[in-house]
């Protein structure tokens, strides 16, 4: 089963001079960790917004676990996916536990099952002692880890992460990446966007490189590196396909 199928996706925002997506297509099987990579303005955020059902595509098709992303399936698909936004989407003046209880409640979780789930994840992310501290007292890494927990409380089958390790120290980054690997081994598909290509090379089984609203290449990470003699790592592959021109 494919966990995600994107076919010929088009999107132009009202008032925009250029389309954001110009026939984007890619797919990947269930259980993989896919890196959605691209320079600034390539269309990654628009793609994620369409995948989540927040933004409607002008044309094209999206399927999540064989369910078309449309009005009828939107709520069902929301249950299948967890999204870790780039921002720390938490209430800074609530404690981590209060934040997680709130988002858990929104998912329909409550009582002891929710509390034990929260305790389990806080422990997994090394936050068990800081659960009662308000989030604004946290370090960048602690906030990022809590941000991830808030997206997986409902145990999604597909986890989408938008630069989950931006601005964190090496220890937090290692812990996050380790957790994602283990989480993936439990059968959860992961879509991951980052500008840290060495990190993507380490964690992703497949990558899709997007530029100017289209997928320029998709394949296994190792396979893509091996495909070109002049490429020694994923960063070389990325530059090979997207060029050296600045995208301001």
């Amino acid at each position, binding site marked *: 089963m494919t966990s995600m199928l994107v076919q010929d996706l088009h999107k132009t925002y009202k008032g925009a001079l250029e389309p954001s997506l110009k026939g984007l297509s890619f797919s990947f099987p269930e259980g993989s960790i896919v890196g959605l990579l691209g320079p600034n303005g390539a269309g990654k955020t628009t793609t994620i917004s369409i995948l989540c059902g927040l933004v409607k595509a002008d044309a094209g098709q999206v399927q999540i676990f064989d369910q078309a992303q449309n009005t009828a399936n939107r709520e069902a698909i929301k249950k299948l996916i967890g999204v870790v936004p780039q921002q720390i989407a938490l209430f800074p003046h609530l404690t981590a536990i209060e934040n997680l209880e*709130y988002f858990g409640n929104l998912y329909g979780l409550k009582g002891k099952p929710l509390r034990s789930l929260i305790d389990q994840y806080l422990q997994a992310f090394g936050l068990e002692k800081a659960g009662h501290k308000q989030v604004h007292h946290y370090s960048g890494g602690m906030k990022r880890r809590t941000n991830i927990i808030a997206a997986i409380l409902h145990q999604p089958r597909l986890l989408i992460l938008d630069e989950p390790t931006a601005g964190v120290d090496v220890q937090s980054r290692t812990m996050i990446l380790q957790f994602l690997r283990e989480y993936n081994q439990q059968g959860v598909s992961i879509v991951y966007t980052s500008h840290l290509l060495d990190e993507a090379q380490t964690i992703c089984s497949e990558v899709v490189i997007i530029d100017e609203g289209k997928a320029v290449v998709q394949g296994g990470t190792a396979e893509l590196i091996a495909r070109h003699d002049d490429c020694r790592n994923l960063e070389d592959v990325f530059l090979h396909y997207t060029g050296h021109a600045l995208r301001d």
Partner: protein
Amino acid sequence: MLRLLATIRKEWLLLLRDRTGLTLLFAMPVVLITVMALIEDAPFRDYQELKFDILTVDNDGGRLGKYIKEGLGQTSQFRVIDSVHGAPVTEQQARALVNEGNYQICIIIPKGATGAIVSNANRIVNDISRRMGMPDVLPVGNRKDSLHVTVYFDPASKKAFKSAIHQALDNFLTQVETDMLLERIKKQLKRKDVAEENDSMNIQLKAVGLKEQLTGPSEELDVISNSVQHNVPAWSIFAMFFIVIPIAGNMIREREDGSMLRMKLIPGSYLAILAGKMLFFVGVCVVQFYLMMQVGIYLLPLLGLPQLTLGQSFLAAFVVAVGIGLAATSYGILVGTVFKTPNQALNFGAISIVILSAIGGIWIPLEIMPPHMQLIGHLSPLSWGLDAINDIYLRNVGVSHIWGDVGKLVVFATVLLCIAATIEKRRLS
């Protein structure tokens, strides 16, 4: 229901930890209401309630001067001053003092004024006696020109004040002239019936008097519009509308930090979350309202102001408070949806509320505004809330009488929420 309750709990925890927000929502309105009620107390008092110093120069030294001074002194309105630094005040001195603004008014009673009144009364009585075949024996003076009691006002005095003083003095003059006339008539009649021992003739002039009654359904309350009765409800409504700023800031922050995005990604209606947020802030508005009423009932009387009188329908007041809360909260949601930064929302929110309150009769009652401003003022949601509260507190009406204003507040809230929803949909597309 879980989403709704969880959102109320979340907002409650956030408010408890936001000391600035708590101060803005509860402490500032208490200070505002107290200050406004105190400074607007004087303009709200009727002239009968205020005490003015009146300089009097009595060049007559007769009954008229005595009568005017006693009459003015007996009212709670005036304090008669006839000497400055221990010496009787002169006409020139009095004029200078009023012109410099030390006193608002001075009265000059001309020499011979009492004599002129007595002479005029005698002339009338003699005329009547002659027509009745009786001898005209009362002495009459030869003076042909009329005398005037002169009044000088501080140049800064308001027209209404001058008019009130004129009327009061006119009443005194009429009263003195009438009394003297009656006295002369009695004297003449007594002279005629000299054989009769019974001298208890009593002439009563006032056959028809004035009696003030209440218009409301109950006679238990006798409320007059005063500074407290206007300012406490008015500035409470103003403070309740200031909830726009925390709500708008709250929404913009949630949008900026991505938590709103997270809420929208979670299955289930975002409307339940929004409803929870609204319910919480409407609750805050209602608590604000009752806190302000407590200020009017317990705190302001300690500062020498009248006590706030509530109407008899507590349910009606509660319904209006909820209506105002709904309108204010919806306005906050709209401002939070339209503007992109907390600064923009803060500036627009604060200024727009000040404008809506100014035209809506919060600062000064709508009734004393020009007709075209009254027309505009009735479009302000703050005026609907104030009208309803005034109806309950001053006219003592119940729930059945306030549906019109509450209905307008609810329609206003619904329209703003629809506009906010449309803008949010457009933003996503």
